[in-house]
């Protein structure tokens, strides 16, 4: 009886499987186009996640991920017991916060300034000059920084000398490391980062400006009342992304610029891991620290996104 009924129903309404098959038959081109992305995600993003478990294992390359024994939170325990890790964590947060505070607004300012430049030749030249450092390798940038801040021949100390200031060996002074590092980062990346804001500004409808002109707004007012509000969505999205990367300090540049003498302010989580790992492939330990980094970054992004969603109606997702 029951069987008969269900049979009857199934005749009237195609089964789930049948419907899916039908759907696939109809839309297979769309799914085919989707396939490469799905495969890419699986292979390059989800499969490596399997390896994250070594953060909780006593990992041996030879035994493999599955064959290594579980040890729970021991790596994390060791990590948080280490004063140097806590110091590195503190430095990371401070450096990121300063980087965000000073480094985030400058590309926006640059974009706004470029937008106000009317002479095309001057504009293009200025843009090329500020984009250039982005394309120079960190090693060369670090070389330039070291030379510029050299106590004997560096331009900075030369200028200080004009004002009667004794030369300072900046790169061995913990109190100078953060300003130099953050300044270098801004110099290197601000121009290039301004491109996204320039693109956003280019997307603002010109009639908004014309309308404002007729209403009597000057350039300053147009910048404040039209340009900045119009690119606010972009600014917020970029901010959320920046916050997500907050612990991803430019590790390479720190390695190139720091000294044991400046570890006190310069050592960040990544450089700490780097030095720890030097003692013979401690992948499990590095994975634990990396996982911690990722979790913190994820929480930060979620928080920023939620706040932004609530107060500015802009969000990544």
């Amino acid at each position: 009886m029951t069987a008969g009924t269900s049979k009857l129903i199934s005749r009237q309404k195609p089964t789930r499987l049948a419907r899916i098959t039908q759907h696939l038959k109809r839309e297979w081109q769309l799914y085919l186009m989707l396939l490469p992305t799905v495969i890419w995600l699986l292979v390059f993003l989800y499969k490596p996640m399997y390896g994250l478990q070594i953060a909780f294992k006593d990992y041996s390359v030879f035994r493999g991920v599955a064959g290594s024994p579980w040890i729970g939170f021991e790596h994390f325990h060791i990590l948080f017991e280490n004063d140097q890790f806590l110091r590195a964590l503190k430095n990371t947060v401070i450096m990121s916060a300063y980087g965000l505070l000073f480094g985030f607004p400058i590309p926006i300012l640059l974009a706004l300034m470029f937008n106000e430049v009317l002479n095309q030749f001057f504009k293009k030249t200025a843009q090329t000059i500020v984009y250039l450092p982005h394309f120079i390798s960190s090693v060369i940038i670090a070389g330039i920084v070291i030379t510029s801040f050299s106590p004997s021949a560096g331009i900075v100390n030369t200028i200080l000398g004009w004002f009667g200031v004794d030369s300072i060996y900046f790169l061995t002074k913990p109190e100078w490391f953060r300003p130099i590092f953050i300044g270098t980062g801004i110099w290197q990346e601000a121009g290039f980062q301004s491109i996204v804001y320039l693109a956003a500004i280019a997307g603002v409808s010109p009639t908004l400006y014309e309308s404002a002109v007729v209403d009597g707004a000057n350039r300053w007012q147009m910048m404040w009342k039209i340009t900045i509000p119009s690119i606010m969505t972009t600014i917020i999205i970029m901010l959320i992304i920046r916050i997500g990367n907050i612990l991803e300090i430019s590790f390479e540049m720190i390695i190139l610029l720091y000294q044991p003498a400046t570890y006190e302010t310069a050592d960040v989580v990544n450089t700490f891991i780097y030095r720890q790992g030097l003692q013979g492939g401690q992948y499990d330990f590095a994975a634990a620290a990396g996982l911690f980094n990722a979790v913190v970054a994820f929480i930060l992004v979620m928080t920023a996104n939620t706040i932004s969603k609530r107060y500015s109606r802009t969000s990544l997702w």
Partner: protein
Amino acid sequence: MSGVSLQGLVKTYGDIQVVHGIDLEVQEKEFVVLVGPSGCGKSTTLRMIAGLEEISDGDLSIDGRFVNNVAPKDRDVAMVFQNYALYPHLNVAENIAFGLRIRRESKAVIDASIKEVGEILGLTPYLGRRPADLSGGQRQRVAMGRAIVRRPKVFLFDEPLSNLDAKLRTQMRAEIKRLHNRLGVTSIYVTHDQVEAMTLADRIVVMHDGRIEQTGTPMELFLNPVNTFVAGFLGSPPMNMINARIESGDNGPIARFGELSLALVDTPTMRDAIGTDITLGIRPEFVTVSTQADTHGTIPVDVELIETLGSEALIHATLQGEPFIIRAGTVGQMDVLNGISGFSVEPNLIRVFDAKTGMALPDQVMKQ
């Protein structure tokens, strides 16, 4: 005297001249519509008045003051843009108040103005909303509110209704007209839509290729277009054009085309023009439908399609292979329309143009 005076206004971009010297006097409180096909220079002219485009040559005066080199904000004009130019990050009230804020008006003045404009435009319930949450018509109203609130000497409209659907356009058209009647501010309105021009304008300026073709009241232009361009541009459906030659008929000049002919008004000008190649302009509305093609004075047509619009119908026909459209009333007439075989037209309802120059022959005046 908040009129606008354009004298020999020219706009060039590099070597290319796009506006070739516009002369136009807009009277105080007058509603002038600049109409023409796209690329005719009407928007450029309007933007020169607003100060958004530099004036290459000629003089522009607003309210008797020479303003060629005066900044837009000091010309005391307000402009409504085609895409509304609303600030997406501001709500309706803030959008309306934008111009006042820029001018650092007091909060009391701003609040009062917002309230007033809100009421005038029926926007009071929406003052707190952002543009993204408004319908097209509401956005258009906000855009107008932004202009009104400034109480300028001159309103400039740059195709303000072209982004709206047909029904909303009709509605907003009427609203603009009412608003003008109420506020009485000098207005210059640019559109490519001749219906808007006809309905809104005190005076229409028809432009073509950077020049003014004709200026006049809507009816003047409708009845007495100076040339084939104006004749063809105004009116919907457009005027039917038939190539013909003036000949001498039994009772005065006639227009002959093929074996067919139509009687023309018997004036000295017409008689003088005998032998001239002409273009006959016959408005679709001005013909009388006939069921008997062989009657004297009836021009036979081949009917292809009858579009019934309700009280009227459009009859798409061909005359000697050329399209010919007739617009006729339907009430009590459907039998006639269905049996149509030709039409007749009164001589004084035919507009005669010189075929070579396209200009109307002189001394034809149709009374309104």
